[in-house]
């Protein structure tokens, strides 16, 4: 399932942009491929992460994968509810945001995919 109105990265993260802030999560396709998520490693608030760098890792019963930030940003907030209930990423991937960040370079948004362009492929 692809939610309308969001921006997507080829590496299967979604972004919801609101002014200078972006909320980031992983797509339904990503959670489906991972299988049962058992753990999530979150970044520290205040950390600056460059485009393409890892901002944490998500671990399922069969794999552990890094999550990549498709744009550069400063972490404003992390969804710490996921630390105790990481399975929310499976049950509600679009409702379970992972980080909120300050967008550092708005031009980088241009490289993201619109919902109509995003393909649920590996």
């Amino acid at each position, binding site marked *: 399932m692809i939610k309308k109105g969001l921006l997507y990265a080829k590496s299967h993260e979604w972004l919801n942009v609101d002014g200078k802030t972006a909320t980031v999560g992983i797509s339904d396709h990503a959670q489906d491929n991972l299988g049962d998520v*058992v*753990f999530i*490693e979150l970044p520290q608030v205040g950390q600056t992460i460059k485009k393409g760098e890892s901002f944490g*890792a998500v*671990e*399922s019963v*069969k*794999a*552990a994968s890094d999550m990549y930030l498709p744009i550069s940003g400063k972490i404003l907030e992390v969804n710490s509810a996921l630390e105790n209930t990481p399975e929310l990423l499976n049950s509600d991937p679009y409702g379970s945001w992972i980080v909120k960040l300050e967008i550092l370079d708005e031009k980088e948004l241009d490289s993201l995919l619109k919902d109509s362009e995003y393909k649920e492929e590996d």
Partner: protein
Amino acid sequence: MHKYLPHTQNDINEMLEKIQASSIDDLFCSIPEALRLKKDYHVPSQLGDWELTKHMQELANQNKELLIFRGAGSYDHYTPSAVKALVSRQEFLTSYTPYQPEVAQGTLQYIFEYQSMVCELTGMDVSNASMYDGATSTAEAMFMAYAQTKKSDILVSSTMNPKIIDVIKTYARYRNINVILIPSIDGVTDQAFIKENIKDKMGVIVSNPNYFGIIEDYQNLGEIIHQEDALFILNQEGQSLALLKTPGELDADIACGDLQALGVPLSFGGAYIGYLATKQKLVRKMPGRICGITTDVDGKRAFVLTLQAREQHIRRAKANSNICSNQSLNALFVTIYLSLVGKNGFKLFASESLNGAHYLYKNLLETKKFEIVYNQPFFKEFVLKASFDVKAFDTYLIDHGILGPLHIGDNNLLFAVTEKRTQEEIDLLVEMVVNFK
């Protein structure tokens, strides 16, 4: 190219060039010149069965069994005969790799038992299924602190065994970790230094007992370290876990050390067994294998490897550690040893080591040939400064069938006593000292 030797001379040259070594001999430069064999091995090309047995017997006869008073990391402890017999059972030697739990339930069960015992001994929540030795487990603990805090500096006590410090430094070098040595005062870690320097460090590594056998007081150290969100890593020798405060009681975040003293025989410096245990919150930063207990679809008890996704065979380059093996057979030694000696035996042997060491200490001082170096509480090892030629003393003892104390510089000698040393043997050593001219 010989079929069993995959490297051509070109391959070898290329490898040497890459690491900037001029010859194969350069790879052994850390071994003192005097200890290197300069002549040919003279290995005969072939011998018949009987001839070979005879030859090996003759070689074995040249060995001289010494009475050991030397520790510094490897100890001559008692191992019940049953341990060796049980460890040699073919089921243990042939079990399939536990990645396929359905065919390796026995292996997985003893690994689970081993982990449970380590948790009980250390007061920690989780243990992995063993490491190569105490030095590497300590270096792996440093990697855990690095992964957890993302900081690059670590404080390491200079009262630790220098060989462990060497291994820590070697590991640190390849992750650009900066090792800062904590000075010592009167043989113990300078805790004021830790207090002043803990800011922005990933953690602190100390040992108990330390290299000099001294039992250090780490009662309030955890608090100092945790105030700066750093990790408290405590290296503690296996047998001392019976008597001293556990790493858990001292609020350590990671416990590590060597368990050779618990049933693993002395064998030319290894293979030994390192333990690594931690609190639940750090479980995903822990390297190596962890075995868990669960139930299968029919509700039957089952053992499985767990938390594998964080491990190198899945995370590969991104894993916290790339260690993939463990000392499973040596973990089995420890598991069987602890099962056989039980809680009381474990404590009894540790007390015997402690009492024997204190008895020797007192009697050596009475010979008036030694001075006290550190006036500190100690476990089974201690340092005394000799008033005589320590090199000649070492040879003299070997000639009389004793492997004496380790010379650690400045005429200081490091003695060790285990539960295996009887009063007669200790008295014999004292007598040898008295008679030494």
